[in-house]
């Protein structure tokens, strides 16, 4: 009799352990989004000094912002190189840039930098630091028409090295009919709700496109950035397992998924 009880307890414990193992190592893997990286040819290489483009090593205080000394030069320097390199390549008149937002990850060398000039020009750049800097032009926004994409009926326009995807079909839907649960905390209400709503439509479109498994995705409100233009936003969502990073154009209702990384990666 006792033997039977011991056997039952043993099998129950073994079954529980097996379930835990499968859930951790298999089910979670199943739930991962297989993200297609942005192709290398969209990235631009930038040398630390480039005589052809006509710039020497950037100064540590390159950005016009008194707070930059609270950001390590390991972040600001590659970001400055990317900004200078892009400005020179595109023959921009602007030479002084205010650092509006910068975040990065020391381990992988990923940096996101958002700058603005006195003339109202704004750059959204994703940078990989290291021995060789490379960057992805998410958006170069200027006041008025003239660049590839219009914003606000010609109030602004922007160029981008990214391939944008429309989410217009999603935004016609009612939020209640959406397939995925996309939420945000009360802290996110500090921002205009248009960014929260529109980002949810774009996420819904992306998750549908990659046939992601169900589950709740929550907006990371601390990481939300909206440029002065008010149309382009840098946004992160997480489902606890992965974090999805996108840039959103709420005027043209289009987005680009920039990266999907593991949530364990405190890269953001």
């Amino acid at each position, binding site marked *: 009799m006792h033997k039977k009880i011991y056997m039952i307890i043993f099998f129950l414990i073994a079954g529980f352990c097996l379930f835990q193992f499968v859930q951790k190592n298999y089910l979670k893997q199943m739930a991962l989004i297989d993200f297609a990286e942005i192709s290398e040819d969209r990235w631009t290489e930038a040398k630390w000094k480039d005589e052809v483009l006509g710039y020497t090593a950037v100064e540590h205080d390159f950005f016009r912002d*008194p*707070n930059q*000394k*609270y*950001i*390590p030069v*390991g*972040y600001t320097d590659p970001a400055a190189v990317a900004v200078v390199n892009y400005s020179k390549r595109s023959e921009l008149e602007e030479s002084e840039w205010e650092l509006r937002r910068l975040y*990065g*990850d*020391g381990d992988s060398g990923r940096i996101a930098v958002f700058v603005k000039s006195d003339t109202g020009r704004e750059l959204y750049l994703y940078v990989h630091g290291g021995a060789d800097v490379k960057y992805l032009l998410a958006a170069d926004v200027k006041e008025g028409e003239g660049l590839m994409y219009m914003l606000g009926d010609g109030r602004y326009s922007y160029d981008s090295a990214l391939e944008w995807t429309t989410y217009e079909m999603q935004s016609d839907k009612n939020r209640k009919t959406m397939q995925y649960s996309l939420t945000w905390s*009360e*802290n996110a*209400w*500090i*921002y*205009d*709700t248009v*960014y929260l709503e529109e980002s949810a439509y774009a996420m819904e479109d992306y998750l549908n496109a990659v046939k992601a498994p169900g589950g709740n995705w929550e907006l990371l409100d*601390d*990481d939300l950035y*909206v440029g*002065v233009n*008010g149309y382009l936003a840098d946004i992160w969502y997480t489902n606890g397992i992965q974090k999805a990073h996108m840039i959103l154009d709420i005027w043209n209702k289009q987005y680009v998924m920039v990266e999907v990384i593991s949530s364990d990666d*405190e890269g953001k």
Partner: protein
Amino acid sequence: MDRKYWMKPVIPIRICIFILGCILVLLWLFLNDGLKRHIPSFTIPEEEWTKLDRSYEVEGEYFYNAGEWHYATEYEQLAAWAVRDYAEKNGLEQKKWFLRHMYREDGSVNAFVCSGTGRELYLLLDEENEKYLVTVDWKVDDLSDYQYSEYSRLVWYDYWEWYNLEQSGQKPEYDFVVAWREDYYENNFWQWSAHALRAYLYSVAPNNRDTWVCMQKSFYMGKNGCIGDVWYDSGKEKIHMLVNMNNKEYTILEVL
């Protein structure tokens, strides 16, 4: 026979009293230790806040850079309302104010503004009760461009002792578990804010053994480069504090 019956219950009663005594001692020790571990919740007293009256309307574009950060209109309006009220009461109405940052954390709404002439205000806002509190009013001192003075009605405590211990390489008698990512901003700030946190924990809960993680994404450093607004989270409680790097002082704004 009588003696036997009389003896029987005495021993268990004595044992019971002894066990009860032990339990009470252990309970006292446990509660005492629990009290020394527990962080009491804290909010700034009502009398420190200024109630906003609706005697005037604040125009939609009060800030020089109104709408630039795309905060929800009601929050930006609330900040504008508070800044204007404070400016009028303190002879600062001529200044142009720039909204530098706003955030919300667990119902606590925070705004940071600066004027073109180096004046900076840190504000706590209460949207529900329409009241505000200026936690820091920073101005450039007349004596020199590099000497600053801050005006604040809050009580500031120093963390020199913890700072000096670190500088001298000595191990403190008490220590707390404080964690932060070192690649965020200047390392000194995190170290010093951790000293401020230790000083606070030592004063209210010396036996606290929670792991306090710095919420570095909620961090704000003013243009002054001296007073940082920082949050620490233990998973059970959150501590919101201001840390002055120059004077090695801190003040607690909230324990939630």
